[in-house]
Each structure stands twice: as structure tokens, then as C-alpha cells.
């Protein structure tokens, strides 16, 4: 591996650029490099690992039992990258990807920033391995300090070995909820309750997918996790509504279960409603997306090799649809094989041969996923908040009521028009935290589906870039197009 610490050290051109150093990106970069491609791997975090293996090479957590065996497996992926010849730039954000007009479409122009300096480079092929984010979970009062995502607490734990101080409540649904609760408790956090919002009516649908789950690797792992968390923590199931109270800071979580209302005083509330693919970069790069009704989220349209609708851009890992860390790594390898084939470095037959055992393993890791997706599908009241005062766009402070009103009274039919009317999605997070909810609210109000409503049309730069950074860029035609398109 060749570590790059300054933006000037990047080459002008790479055969393959991989965005994201989670399991998908690490495997894609290593495999492509092993096949002889000149590879650049970039990630905006200071260390490789992505979300699951965050800070795997630097974590200050010493007790290995706290994060569990799965976490420490990440070291092997990083070691493989280190053995490879790939270039790796940490703290480097990709903010645009566009066809390089000067190369007649044979390569992409990629806008990157590192340490406050921007740069444009080119790459023949691109693999987006940008992973997932937590699903937005707007409830009344969720903008109060003291409320965070459960993933945030996990990140703080893995990268800084710090845990929430005082009384902590975890609320939401999904397999990660139990994992996070268990990890935080093992790390010494005072988890006073886990409020489980998994809708009981999900069970009938999920049972149809049970046979596959029973033969899947998730089963043993999941049961162990659940049993451990339930044994040691106070679990309250069947939670149907949540609201945060406090003046200037969270002090109480109020909730309903079984028709009765209850409350718990707490210092930290951690919210989690599963994860959804991060689509900002793929959306802005022009890749077509569709609504996955089982995972209930937008996913890029991909073929068997994870190639997107834009020839030359592939999407691997959880960014291609949620599949978990093991499948992310395998998808990364498959995408890398196809990149090598597209560049003419291996034949179709070689690609297929290499891919066959990886596909078998991928099938195995994904078996049983459907059961989890169906069982942990968030309740509708958390997807489209019922209380009108609930802020859904944290940046511009737009409420659920305003979106409903604009959809009903003003006849706003889609998220892009909603943006123009209410400024939701116009803040610095560029819709990452309101997009799914806006779509849901419009669909609900207009009696249609998220698929029909569509999603925000996003534009580069997908992360804010300063004017000084842009001004310092060499002005190629493509550069101008990437910004003004």
C-alpha cells in the first residue's frame, strides 16, 4: 500500500478509483491491485475500516470482548490492502464524479479534497463503496442536544473509547440495535432501557422468509446477540410512539406501549431505525436508482457485476443495498473483477472463473437477509412522523406538518419541488437526513408510493467545498461542467 497524505501526492490518472475504505472498498482495491491495476482508494475518515471496522488499526479499546469477534476480523482486510500496491488517501473526500470530456468518455474526472485543498484527477473506472447511513428517525424533540444516533455512540466507542455518561436509553429497531446496546453495555455505559419499536405486525410477513433464515449464518449470531442483550438489559417491546422532552437539552423520553404512556428520565438517547444505502454520490454522478420495497429504501440500479447505469461506475457494499459486512467485502471483489475486465486486463472467462466461488459465498452470506428486512421494517409512524411539529429537515428546520401542508394544499408532488417551496434538503447535509422522510410524507399525503414520488435530484459537489478550494482548481471544461451541471 502506498499511503498518500497530501493531495499533491495523488497521480493525475488511475486505472481504478475506489471511494470508501470499508469492507467493500478495501476488498475491491486489494483485488484490483492484485490483478495489476493502478488503484487509488480514498476515504474521508482518518483510518481505514468503514463503519463496521471503524478505527480498526488505531482503536483505543483494549478489551477485545467489548466490540466482539466480528470487529477484529477487519484487521485482515486492512492487512491485505497493506500488502497490495494500491495508493490509499485518508481524510480525502470525493465531492464529484463526472465523465471526463477530454478523454471522450474513456475516463472519469473526480473532484477530491484533502486538508482544505481540492484537486481533480481522472480514473478509467470507478467503484463507489460509500456504504450506508442510519435511516432518519424523526421524533418530536430529536434535535435536542443529548439525542444522537446509536451509530454515533458506537463510533465514539470504537474510535475514541468513550461512552455516554449517565442514564442512557436506546430506542428503535433492527439487528444493529441489539448489537449496539450490547457493545455499549459491555463498555460500561449505563443503559437504563432499550425501547424496541419493531412492529408486531411484521411477524406474519417475516415468517414466510423464515426457512432461509434458519439455514443462514445470521441465525446463531443473531440469537446469541439477542439472548445476551435481553438477559442483561431492560427491554421494552411494542413501543409505538416516542417523543423527547427537555429545555435546551434532553431530559426525558416519553413513549407509548400497549396503549399506555410512560416516560424515563435520561441523559442520552440513542436512536436507530436500521441503515439505508448512502446514495448522495451515486445519485449526483447520474446513476439510476429505484425504490426497494423490501428494504424500504432507495438503491442504485445494478447488474450482476454491480455495474450502475453509468458505464464505468460500479457500486459495491451496503451502498448497493444493505447486505452486511461480509457481503460488502465479496461484492467489492466482484466489482473489482469486472473493472479489470472492462479495462481489458482480464478476459470475460477469467473474470467469470474468479467470480464463481465469490458468488457462492455471497449467496451464503445473503441468505436469511430477507427475514431480517421484513421483520425489522420500521413502523409507518416512524417513517412519516405523525406529530406535525416534528422537525424533519434538521438543517432548515422544516416540520412534518409543513411538508404535509405543501403536499396537500399546494399540491406539491415531488421532493424537488418541495425543496423549492420549503428549503428542505437545501442545507449543508444536502437531504441526507430529510430526503427519505420527505418522500414518505409526500407519498402518504398523496396516497401514493415512495417509488412514484421519486427522490431528490442531487448535484455535485456532494459535500460542501469552499470557494477557495474551487477557485484554486485548474479550470478544465469538465471541471466547469461538474460544478454548473
Amino acid at each position, binding site marked *: 500500500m502506498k499511503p498518500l497524505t497530501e493531495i499533491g501526492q495523488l497521480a493525475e490518472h488511475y486505472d481504478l478509483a475506489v471511494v470508501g475504505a470499508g469492507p467493500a472498498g478495501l476488498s475491491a482495491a486489494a483485488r484490483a491491485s492484485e490483478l495489476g491495476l493502478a488503484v487509488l482508494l480514498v476515504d474521508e475518515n482518518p483510518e481505514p475500516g468503514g463503519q463496521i471496522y471503524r478505527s480498526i488499526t488505531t482503536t483505543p479499546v483494549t478489551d477485545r470482548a467489548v466490540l466482539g469477534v466480528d470487529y477484529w476480523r477487519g484487521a485482515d482486510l486492512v492487512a491485505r490492502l497493506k500488502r497490495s500496491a494500491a495508493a490509499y488517501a485518508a481524510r480525502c473526500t470525493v465531492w464529484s464524479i463526472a465523465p471526463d470530456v477530454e478523454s471522450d468518455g474513456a475516463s472519469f474526472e473526480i473532484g477530491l479534497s484533502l486538508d482544505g485543498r481540492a484537486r481533480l484527477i481522472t480514473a478509467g473506472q470507478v467503484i463507489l463503496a460509500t456504504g450506508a447511513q442510519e435511516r432518519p428517525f424523526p421524533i418530536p424533540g430529536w434535535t435536542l442536544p*443529548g439525542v444522537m444516533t446509536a451509530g454515533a455512540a458506537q463510533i465514539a466507542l470504537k474510535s475514541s473509547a*468513550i461512552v455516554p455518561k449517565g442514564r442512557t436509553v436506546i430506542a428503535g429497531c433492527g439487528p444493529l440495535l441489539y448489537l449496539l446496546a450490547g457493545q455499549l453495555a459491555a463498555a*460500561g455505559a449505563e443503559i437504563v432501557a432499550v425501547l424496541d419499536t419493531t412492529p408486531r405486525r411484521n411477524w406474519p410477513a417475516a415468517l414466510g422468509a423464515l426457512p432461509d433464515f434458519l439455514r443462514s449464518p445470521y441465525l446463531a449470531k443473531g440469537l446469541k446477540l439477542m439472548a445476551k442483550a435481553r438477559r442483561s438489559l431492560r427491554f421494552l417491546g411494542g413501543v409505538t410512539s416516542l417523543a423527547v422532552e427537555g429545555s435546551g437539552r434532553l431530559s426525558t423520553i416519553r413513549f407509548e406501549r400497549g396503549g399506555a404512556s410512560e416516560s424515563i428520565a435520561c441523559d442520552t438517547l440513542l436512536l436507530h431505525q436500521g441503515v439505508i444505502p448512502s446514495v448522495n454520490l451515486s445519485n449526483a454522478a447520474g446513476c439510476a436508482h429505484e425504490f426497494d420495497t423490501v428494504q424500504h429504501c432507495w438503491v442504485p440500479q445494478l447488474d450482476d457485476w454491480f455495474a450502475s447505469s453509468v458505464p464505468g461506475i460500479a457500486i459495491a457494499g451496503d451502498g448497493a443495498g444493505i447486505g452486511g459486512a461480509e457481503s460488502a467485502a465479496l461484492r467489492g471483489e466482484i466489482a473489482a473483477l469486472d473493472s479489470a475486465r472492462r479495462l481489458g486486463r482480464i478476459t470475460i472467462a477469467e473474470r467469470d472463473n474468479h467470480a464463481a466461488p465469490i458468488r457462492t459465498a455471497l449467496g451464503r452470506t445473503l441468505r436469511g437477509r430477507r427475514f431480517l428486512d421484513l421483520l425489522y421494517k420500521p413502523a409507518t409512524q416512524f417513517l412519516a412522523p405523525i406529530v406535525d411539529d416534528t422537525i424533519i429537515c434538521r438543517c432548515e428546520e422544516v416540520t412534518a406538518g409543513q411538508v404535509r401542508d405543501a403536499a396537500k394544499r399546494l399540491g406539491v408532488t415531488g421532493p424537488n419541488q418541495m425543496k423549492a417551496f420549503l428549503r428542505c434538503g437545501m442545507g449543508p447535509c444536502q437531504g441526507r437526513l430529510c430526503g427519505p422522510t420527505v418522500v414518505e410524507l409526500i407519498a402518504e399525503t398523496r396516497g401514493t408510493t415512495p417509488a412514484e414520488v421519486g427522490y431528490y435530484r442531487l448535484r455535485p459537489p456532494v459535500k460542501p467545498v469552499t470557494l477557495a478550494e474551487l477557485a484554486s482548481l485548474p479550470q478544465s471544461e469538465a471541471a466547469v461542467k461538474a460544478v454548473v451541471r
Partner: protein
Amino acid sequence: MFRPMSDAKSAATLSFSFDGRPLIGRDGDTVAASLLANGVDVCRETPVSGAPRAPYCLMGVCFECLVVIDGVGNRQGCMVPLRDGMTIETQHGRRQPEEMQG
């Protein structure tokens, strides 16, 4: 807000300031993590209503961790590694062009 685990690996300490208050952080932490570990409750006030906000996702998604670092505003505290001697300030409301220069 947050406290260190008792058996965390030790790291070099860094001095920095938040709104003029001298604080101590750990090498390897991000700005947002150091603020949380130092009991800082609020790091920005929103441009629309002035409501207080604190880091929410710690992974670069929500932009709630925006602070002014060494005079440069709109920096994502959860993505910036803490450095010795950093001057960090609450980001109040909307940034004005003249404040944004580093």
C-alpha cells in the same frame, strides 16, 4: 455527555480551546469527540431559529457538528482530527462571508 472507558489505551494529550475555555483532548480523536468527552453540550446554533445543536451522527452525514476551527467556519467537527493548539468556537447561526476566511 461522554466519559472515557476505564481501560482505554493511553494517548498523547493535546491542548485546545473551546469558546476561550482551555481544554485537554486525546491525540487520535476528532474535534467532535473531544468536545463530547469534555462535556460540551452544544456546538452550534441553527441559522433559522437559533436552536442549540450538538453532534448527532458522528459520521459526516448530519452536519450538526459544525464549528468554527481556527477562525474557519462550517467545519465538520466529526471529520476533523483534533490538533494541538486548535481554537474551536461555537458556530452561531448563519456564516457571514467575512467570517469564513481562514
